[in-house]
C-alpha cells in the first residue's frame, strides 16, 4: 500500500503481529524441548530410533519453503497464473508432509514405541511432532484460503501483505521442523 511508504517506513502491523506470534510459538516449543532435556537426564529414560520416513518429510518441508518463496515472488511480479500454481503446490506439499508424519508415527508404533506406558523419548516425539504438525496444518488451511482468494473472480487482489504473512509463517514452521528434527537426532 502506498500509505505505508507515505506514512512511515515501518513493518506492516500484521507482519509485525506475526513475528510476535512466532516468538510465542517458539516459547511453546522451547518449553517442550527443555522439558525433554530435563527428563532425558532422569533414570529410566529410553531412546528411539528415528524412522527413515521423517527424513523424507524433511525434504518435503524444505521443498515447500522454496515453492512458497517463489509464489511470493511471482505474486509481486504479477505472474498470477504461476502464483496460483505454486500456491497450490505448497499446500499439497504441506498436506503431504502431514501424511508422511502420520506414516512416521505408524512406523514408530509398529516398532514398539507407544504413547502410553513408561516415559521416554518416544512419548515426547509423538507430542512435539504432533504439535508441530498441527501448526503446519494451520498454515495449510491459511494457504487454502489464499488459494480460493487467488481463484476468485470477484476480487482482484494485489495486496502482497497476506502473501508475505503466510510465506513468513511457512518458512517459520519449516525452520521449526528442522530445529525439532535435528534436536531429536542429536539429543537421544
Amino acid at each position, binding site marked *: 500500500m502506498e500509505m505505508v511508504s507515505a506514512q512511515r517506513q515501518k513493518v506492516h*502491523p500484521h507482519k509485525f503481529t506475526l513475528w510476535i506470534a512466532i516468538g510465542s510459538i517458539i516459547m511453546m516449543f522451547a518449553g517442550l524441548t527443555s522439558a525433554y532435556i530435563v527428563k532425558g537426564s532422569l533414570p529410566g529414560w529410553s531412546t528411539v530410533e528415528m524412522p527413515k520416513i521423517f527424513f523424507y518429510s524433511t525434504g518435503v518441508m524444505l521443498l515447500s519453503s522454496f515453492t512458497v518463496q517463489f509464489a511470493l515472488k511471482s505474486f509481486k511480479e504479477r505472474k498470477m497464473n504461476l502464483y496460483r500454481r505454486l500456491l497450490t503446490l505448497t499446500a499439497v506439499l504441506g498436506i503431504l508432509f502431514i501424511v508422511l508424519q502420520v506414516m512416521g508415527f505408524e512406523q514408530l508404533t509398529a516398532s514398539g514405541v507407544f504413547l502410553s506406558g513408561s516415559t521416554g523419548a518416544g512419548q515426547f516425539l509423538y507430542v512435539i511432532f504432533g504439535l508441530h504438525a498441527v501448526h503446519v496444518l494451520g498454515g495449510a488451511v491459511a494457504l487454502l484460503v489464499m488459494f480460493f482468494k487467488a481463484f476468485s473472480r470477484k476480487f482482484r487482489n494485489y495486496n502482497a501483505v497476506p502473501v508475505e504473512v503466510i510465506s513468513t509463517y511457512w518458512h517459520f514452521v519449516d525452520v521449526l521442523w528442522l530445529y525439532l528434527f535435528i534436536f531429536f537426532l542429536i539429543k537421544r
Partner: protein
Amino acid sequence: MSNEAALHGHSEVAHSHEVHHGDDHGHHHKETFITKYVFSQDHKMIAKQFLITGMIWAILGGLMSVLFRLQLGYPDQSFPWLEDILGRWAKGGHISAENYYALVTMHGTVLVFFVLTGGLSGTFANFLIPLQIGARDMASPMMNMLSYWFFFGGSVVMLSSLFIQTGPFSGGWTAYPPLSALGSASPGSKTGMDLWIIAMAMFVISSLLGGLNYVSTVLNMRTKGMSMTKMPLTMWALFFTAVLGILSFPVLLSGFVLLLFDRHAGTSFYLSDIYITGVGALPNEGGSAILYQHLFWFLGHPEVYIILLPAMGIASEVLSVNSRKPIFGYMAMVGSMFAITILAFLVWAHHMFVTGLNPFLGSVFVLLTLLIAVPSAIKVFNWLTTIWKANIRFTPGMMFAIGFVSLFISGGLTGIFLGNSTLDIHLHDTYFVIAHFHIVMGVSAFFGMFAGVYHWFPKMYGRFMNNTMAYIHFWVTLIGAYLIFWPMHYEGLAGMPRRYWDYSIWESFKQFSELNKFISTVAIIVFAAQLMFVFNFFYSIFKGRKVTVQNPWGATTLEWTAPIRPGHGNWPGEIPEVHRWAYDYSKDGRDFIPQTEPVGADESKHH
C-alpha cells in the same frame, strides 16, 4: 498500514488508491445492537466487556472465599441456610472437605486468571492503549474481539465445571500432578479437571490474541510525535505486561498439553510409581511431577507481574495526575519495569525451594529473587517522591492509588522473607505465604484496578461514580484487607499450614480459633463493601453525575482530548499530534500542559 485502514477492515482492501479521509469517522459504520454491544470490534466496548465479565467473576470468586472463610472461622457451627443455597455442597450446613478444596481451587484460578489477568489487563490495555497513544483502534480489531470471546468461552466452561456431578477441580489452582493428572485421584480430578484445562487453554489463547495486539499496537500505531519515551507510564506497563504474557503463557500451554496426554493417552510425563487405593499400582514409570512445576511456574511467576504491572502503571498515572506533579523519575520507572520483566523469567524456582531443588541452584534463585527488590524499591520511592509535598487531590482514584502503594510496600517486604530459601523451609505452604501474595498481588492489584476504574470511569461512561460510596469502599477495603491479612502473617510464622479444612482439631492451631473467626468476620464485611462498589458502578452508568467538561481531572494525556463519549475511531477529526511527554504538571506557572501543545520557545526544560 494506517490507523484508518485498521478501523475499516482491510483484509479485502483491494487497492492502494482507496482514498482515506480522516474526518468521516462518527458515521462510517451502520451499527446494530449486535455489532455495537455484543460482537463489537471497538476497543472501548471490548474493554467494558472484559471489565464487566471480570466483575462478575470477582463477585463469584469473592463469594467462594466468603464460603470457605465461614468454614475456617466457624468449623464447629452449622449453617442450615448454606444447604438451602448450595445443596449437596454443604450437607448439614457444613462445607464438606471435598467442596472446601474445590472452592479454594476455584477461588485461586478465578481471581488470578479471570479477574486479575483478564479483567485487569484486558480492560485497561483495551481501553487505554488506543486512546493514550493516539490510535483509532487496535492493530487488529478482529483479533481483539476474538480475544474477548475466547475469554468468554473459557469463562463459560470454567463456570459450567461448578455444576457437574463430580464437582470442579479441587487440587489447588496450580493444578499439580498427580492430583490433576489422575482422574481416580479425587472426584474433582475427573471431568472437572478436563473442563479446567479446556477453560484455561481458551483463556491462554485469549491472552495471546490480546497480547499480540497490544504489543503490535503500541509499537506500530502511535500518533505523530508520540515517541516511546513520550508515552504515559500506563502504556509502558501494559506493553511489558503483554510481552510477559506472550512469552510465558505458551510455556504453560505446553505444560497443559503434556498434562492432557497424561490424563487421556496414558503417557508418563508427570507420573511415576503411583499406587492408588482401590485401583492398585499404575503402569506409569519415569515421569516427574516436578517437571510440571517447572513448566507451570515459568508462567506462574511472570503471571504475578502480568497482574501487578498494569496496576503499577495505573497507579503511576493516577498519582501524578492527582498530585499535580510530574511523575518522579520517568526513565527510572520505565527501566525498573523493564528490569522486572526480565527478572520475572529468572526466578520461577523460588516457588520450588522445597521440592528437592539443588541447594546451590536454590541460592542462585534466591539472589535473582532478591534482585527484584531493587526495581520494586525504585518504583516505590518514585511514587512516594511524586506525592511528596504535592498539592494532592484526594479523588477516589487517588485514594486507591495511594492504597496500592501502601499495600505494595507491606506485601513486598514479606517477599524478602519468602525469597530466602532457608527461611522458606519454615514458611513455605503456611499462612505467611497466603498473607504475602494476597497483599502484594491480590489486594494491591485490586487497588490498582479500582484506581483505574474510578479514574477512567468518566471516560468510559461519560459520568462520575458516586464519591461517598467510593470513600466508604476505600476505607473499608483498605482497613479490612490489613485486618484480614496481617494476622495471617502471625499464624504463618507459628507454622499454620495453608489448605487445611479444619484447624480446630490440631492442638498447635487451636489457639488461633478466635483469630480465624475475626478474619472471617472481616472478610464478610469487606466482601459486602465490594458489592457496594458493584452497585455504585452500575448505578453510576445510568444515574451518575454527568461529565460536562472534556478533561475533568485536568490531565495531560491524549484520551482527554477525545470527545466526552468518543465514537468508534475515538477522535472525530484528525488524530491529535503529540509534542511533549505526558507529565507536564505545575510547569512554568501553569497547572498542566496537554501533550498536544507544542513546546514554547521560552519554556523551561523538564527534569
